[in-house]
């Protein structure tokens, strides 16, 4: 007796609803055994992971603060992934956005000009776009692989930031430590809810998610990209320009990631320093897939990812769980989510050896999407 994966004729609606529930169940059961084996009360761990991070206004503010960069990067990435454009360098575009926007902030110094913040945000967006334009140009002009180019540009952006804070932008009163001066009051984003750290960035991010949804569902540009992703041959036959899709996908992601970068440094950090992101641009790749590459889904993906980060911290502080275990638990949930999603478009079919004449369709990343 053997099992094979068989593509469903139509994605299963019932599975689409059941998939997150199945994933949660799988996670709960595995977590129960894992934590019991470690001698920890699983109920308390679940409480710390999923309830404590939501138990006060401040905590919810933290959740939204961490959601912001994940959502912004996830939105841009999802758009590209839908069109089969594999930008994995959102982290670099985020860094460049922070550099460009932060540079404007430093240029304004302590000025209380009303132009400071709009120009910083604009510079952040442009910084990210310019960084994403490099792989777009190389791909459309020389057919280079955008996966490699975007990834390599991450390290270049990080080194550029490191050089700036070690050199020209180093705080002259900072005893040579590698960080810039703190931004002035007008160069720091105002807080959305008093007593929290969450800024207007989350409002921009949610607004952009709505815009992305409208664009992908209701405009021809969105349609062209979707076709290019699902059926490249059909898109080519219809005369949809692949080059245009590449440019749009990369520039949009550069813009959102750049905005994420400037929101981070002009928000909770308040200066430029060597490390500004704990890897939001990479985590956003998972966020995009959890959200099934749908703008509204990405909102939930980003919220979940953010909750898992905060929950992991709470479990460390509250129960002395090692961070490796909290990381393992986070990975488990993501694994179950993505695994359960597979069964929306595939079903498990039982076959007898005799029946196995020719191999059934191979599962690839493309077909699973």
């Amino acid at each position, binding site marked *: 007796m053997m099992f094979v994966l068989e593509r469903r004729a139509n994605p299963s609606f019932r599975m689409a609803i059941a998939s997150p529930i199945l994933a949660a169940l799988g996670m709960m059961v595995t977590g129960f055994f894992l934590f019991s084996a470690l001698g920890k009360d699983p109920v308390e761990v679940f409480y710390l992971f999923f*309830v404590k991070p939501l138990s006060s206004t401040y905590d919810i503010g933290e959740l939204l603060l961490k959601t912001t960069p994940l959502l912004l990067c996830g939105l841009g990435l999802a758009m590209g992934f839908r069109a089969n454009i594999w930008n994995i360098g959102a982290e670099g575009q985020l860094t460049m956005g922070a550099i460009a926007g932060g540079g404007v902030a430093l240029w304004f110094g302590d000025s209380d000009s009303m132009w400071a913040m709009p120009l910083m945000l604009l510079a952040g967006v442009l910084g990210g776009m310019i960084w994403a334009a490099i792989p777009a140009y190389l791909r459309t002009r020389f057919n280079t692989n955008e996966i490699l180019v975007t990834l390599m540009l991450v390290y270049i952006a990080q080194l550029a930031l490191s050089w700036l804070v070690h050199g020209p932008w180093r705080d002259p009163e900072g005893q040579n430590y590698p960080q810039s001066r703190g931004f002035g009051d007008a160069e720091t984003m105002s807080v959305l809810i008093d007593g929290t750290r969450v800024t207007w960035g989350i409002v921009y991010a949610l607004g952009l998610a709505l815009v992305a949804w409208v664009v992908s569902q209701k405009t021809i540009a969105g349609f062209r990209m979707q076709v290019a992703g699902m059926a490249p041959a059909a898109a080519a036959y219809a005369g949809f320009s692949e080059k245009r899709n590449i440019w749009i996908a990369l520039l949009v992601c550069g813009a959102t990631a750049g905005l994420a970068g400037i929101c981070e440094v002009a928000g*909770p*950090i308040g200066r430029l*320093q060597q490390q500004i992101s704990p890897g939001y641009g990479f985590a956003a790749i998972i966020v995009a897939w959890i959200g099934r590459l749908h703008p509204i889904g990405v909102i939930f993906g980003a919220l979940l990812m953010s909750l898992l980060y905060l929950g992991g911290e*709470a479990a460390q502080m509250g129960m002395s769980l090692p961070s490796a275990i909290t990381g393992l638990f986070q990975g488990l949930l993501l694994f179950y989510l993505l695994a359960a999603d597979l069964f929306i478009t595939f079903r498990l079919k039982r076959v007898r050896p005799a029946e196995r004449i020719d191999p059934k369709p191979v599962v690839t990343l493309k077909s699973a999407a």
Partner: protein
Amino acid sequence: MQLNKKWKFLRLSIAAGLLATSGAVASAEPLKVAFVYLGPVKDGGWTQMHDEARQKLEKAMGDKIKTTFVENVPETADSERVFRQLAADGNKLIFATSFGYMEPLQKVSKVFPNVKFEHVNGFKTAPNIVVYEPRFEEGFYLIGTIAGQMTKTNTLGFIGSFPIPSVMRNIDSMTLGALAQNPKVTMKPIWVNTWYDPGKERQAAETLIAQGADNVGQNTDSPASIQVAQEKGTYAFSIDADMSSFGPKAQLTGTTEDWSGYYIAETKKVLDGSWTGNRHTRWGLKEGMVVMAPLNPVIPPAAVKVFEDTKAKIISGELKPFVGPISDNTGAVKVAAGTAMTDTDAAFNSVNWYVKGIEGSVPQ
């Protein structure tokens, strides 16, 4: 939420009960002490030494305290949340064990004026923030003493993390220690721009050895350079922890930290109410915060004697690593003859120059 409420209720009722009987609420609950780590507790270096000290602290203080730690806390916007949460959870003494936590600590300390914060290697104090720092330069001077005597090529190497003052002092003092024994040595630095990256550190060590550096010091956290030296038959020096198990033939000595004495002293101060803010404490070999890793038996007795004598002189205060005349590698005089640069000098906290004997220029 439910659990939290229950817990709060429980605590309140215990407190109320004690209030009614003895009135001694303060001594009823153990002092909560928290540690925030940049890396994992088993990193084999920096963070592990802090966590070992935390365990010694717990052992020494018994049920008078309760410790918590959070590992892998990045120096991004996240650290501020961790500090706030620890303070809100009732921790009264919080040790922040990485330099990059400095700005978040400034913000959180204002929100929690009754919580005491201790920051390693920083420079911003406050009424409830103190800074503590080992005199690494003493350990590196002693490393230089050995390296200067053991080198056959008269070429030393140094794997640097970031060219910030506290690291610059280490390459400078290692070079000064070596020059005091062997005026012919030159020092080759490589900066890897990371605290921990075994791949990059390995590459740097291989490059330095290929350029003839047969004694390599490091200010990065992994044992990679010790392993490379073991493979190539050259010498290396550990930092933070004793890494001789990674290269028993290669590691000559190393500078390690024992934070437990300081942690115990500070915790006692909080318990008896004598803790004050706005301090900057530096402890070295004398106080036992800097501890040299065991000397490799390959070192000849004469060299060991020089090492031990130098160490005794540093402990007695007779020898200071940065005693003039010292000029930088462009010839400019940095410390005049007859004076010594010590940690009370502003110049000490902003060292950004190579002493004579180091090749190249400081990366900007």
